[in-house]
């Protein structure tokens, strides 16, 4: 065993590559990003990303390169345009619809603790007055 411990650090290129590969889907795998897959395709894609980073391309350029070849399927996060629009709108619509239904339900079932007493009819009022007068005398 070597006496001197050599400190190794992560290759910054590797980290940059993984940060991009995380958001790309390995298209032959089952629900795995390129960063985690051991499939040959994923390994090839990783080396392509490495080369492109070395060639000075930006993250967006590299992502676009893969989208041109594999379509939107390769993006782990669906776009907010095209077929992905609905998927992003759905939770918003659900919040509005279900929230409004919940609110409407509460409004409809809302009753004060006790209903306010109905106003006395003229006859009844007269009776009450009469009773009070009697009680006083």
């Amino acid at each position, binding site marked *: 065993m070597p006496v001197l411990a050599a*400190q190794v650090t992560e290759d910054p290129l590797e980290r940059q590559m993984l940060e991009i590969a995380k958001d790309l889907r390995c298209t032959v795998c089952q629900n795995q990003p390129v960063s985690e897959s051991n499939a040959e395709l994923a390994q090839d894609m990783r080396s392509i990303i490495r080369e492109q980073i070395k060639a000075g391309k930006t993250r967006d350029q590299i992502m676009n390169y893969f989208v041109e070849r594999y379509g939107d399927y390769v993006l782990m996060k669906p776009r907010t345009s095209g077929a992905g629009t609905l998927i992003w709108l*759905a939770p918003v619509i659900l919040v509005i619809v279900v929230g409004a239904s919940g609110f409407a339900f*509460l409004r409809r079932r809302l009753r004060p603790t006790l209903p306010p007493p109905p106003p006395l009819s003229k006859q009844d009022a007269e009776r009450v007055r009469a009773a009070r007068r009697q009680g006083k005398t």
Partner: protein
Amino acid sequence: MLASNLSLNLVELGHFCAYLAMMVALLQGAAPIAAHYLRQPRLAQLSVNASAAVFMLTTIGGLSLVHAFVTSNFSVQYVATNSNSLLPIFYKVAALWGGHEGSLYLWVWILTLYTLIVGWRGRKQYPEHLPAILAVQGWLIVGFFGLILFLSNPFDRVFPAPPDGNDLNPLLQDPGMVFHPPMLYLGYVGFSVPFAFAMTALITRWRSELWIGLIRRWALIAWGFLTTGIILGGWWAYYELGWGGYWAWDPVENASFMPWLLGTALVHSITVQDHRRMLHTWNIFLVISTFSLSLLGTFLVRSGVLSSVHAFAVDPGRGAYILVFMTVVLAISFGIFMVKGRYQQAEEAITSFMSRESLFVWNNVLFTVACGSVLLATLYPLALDALSGQKITVAAQYFNAVMVPLFLALMLLMAVGPLVPWRKAKLDRLRSRLLWPFGIGIATAVAVILFFPPVHWTGPVAAGLALFAFSNLVIDFARAVSQRRAQLQEPLGRACYKTVLGNRRHYGGMTVHFGIVIIALGLTGSGLFRSEATVSMAPGDVVEVAGERLRFEGVRDLQGTNYQAIQGRLTLLNSGRVLLPERRLYMRQQAPMTETSIDSTMARDVYVVLAESSDRNKWAVHVYVNPLVRFIWSGGIIILLGILLSLSSFRRPRADKVAAAARPAR
């Protein structure tokens, strides 16, 4: 030789019993209907006796399969595909649910077990409704046995019998395999019991205060199993799959998560019906939907429509059967709900928007939205692909963006809800009670921002809400204890103990909330503050990740019972502990499997994966430092304790009191 002959015949006996079980289940389902139309009420009792027979027969079938696995009887196709003579006995038994056919058998086995218990408890508690409940269960059993016996039969034989089995998928050769699927199925199938009660309530116009207590208990049991199953699944995925995470928003995970979301809504809204006699119809709707999602989950996983790591069975015939079965169950149950639902009417009204029942409604709104979003996001890519051929990926990135805000809103409700009284809250009183906890929450959020500068906005919010909820729980409990002490002059320990045991349902629920708070902290810590490095190391090299220094010592060869392995050795220089990650090559499998090694403390996990070697002396090593992961598993245990506490309350349900009150009048 004698033993193997016995095993051969036992499988046929089991096979026969399974057919018989299906026939008896048919009787169980049909007898109460016949009793109704032939006006022979005593006929209905048949279904009660049948339910016990169905369980016995299904058990004989199941045990014969277990026996075939243990004795390595490879003349059974299913055993030959999923087992191997070298497999440890532990996994031979668990291999019963290692594949498609056996998992379905486990499903129906658990269903018959639940039916047995319902039948046994019901003879005294709800005898008039028992036949109808068992009939609903009986038809479900028939449906599943139909799938098992005609389309995916675990008793099928193969001739000539292969000399050795194909081996269990190595991913499944793990203690997690022994516990995770049965727990999950106990949860899934458990929701069939409230479903059967709800159907019976609709059909027989059972009075709501009589069934609600029964449904509450069963829903809680099912929810408890499902929660445990999901957390166990996360734990298993965490140490087995080797990517440093525990939840990937994989469609199969979503399939179990959807019934969990609606089940959680159900467990809460049942309380409203129990205490305030409202939401009857909504509760029945939730019960039906939750069970439907359990069926959908089974369909998604078992039909192979999903492209995911779990889909180890692909067969269109089975998919079509489950789809038709599910459609029939949905159509009949929602049909009955539409026709008869209005007889289950709410009796009371909301007094104020600022009341516990109103917050429960918002809880239900949020859980429904969460469940709907997961459902759409899981099914939409499938539908899009089927209809237009266009493929998109909806993965973790999407789900995190959508679900985290919803969960944060739910955390807020969870923090405040238990303090708000039923009917109407006095705002000034509430404000003074919330003041301190709110301050603690804000202070936590500020501390997170200050001490971990570049952090996603969800970090401080989640931590703040967690501490807000936690201090509310503590203060609420402390108030109850001090009141008790003032009244009864009890010592502190006794007062705490008596307070909890005096209201087990409430404190059971609060314990579950506490578990959720702990899990939320764990998710925040491990989700937002993970550090990782992938380095190539020669023996003697040292790597530092998030303050943890690891020295790679080298590798050695290792021989397991049914695999060969290369074991790496790393020393954690801070503590001197040793990590031993492996790469295993199982017999009959081509690709090597990684076995992670984890050094775990409450504060952080150091998680190491040995990857491929680049040259003779150097190995690629993935090191992850995941903070607070243990909080998640600990929270799971706390939740389980909370559920047990809540279920231990054997207060006689209101149903019995009403029945008891009605009896002398007769």
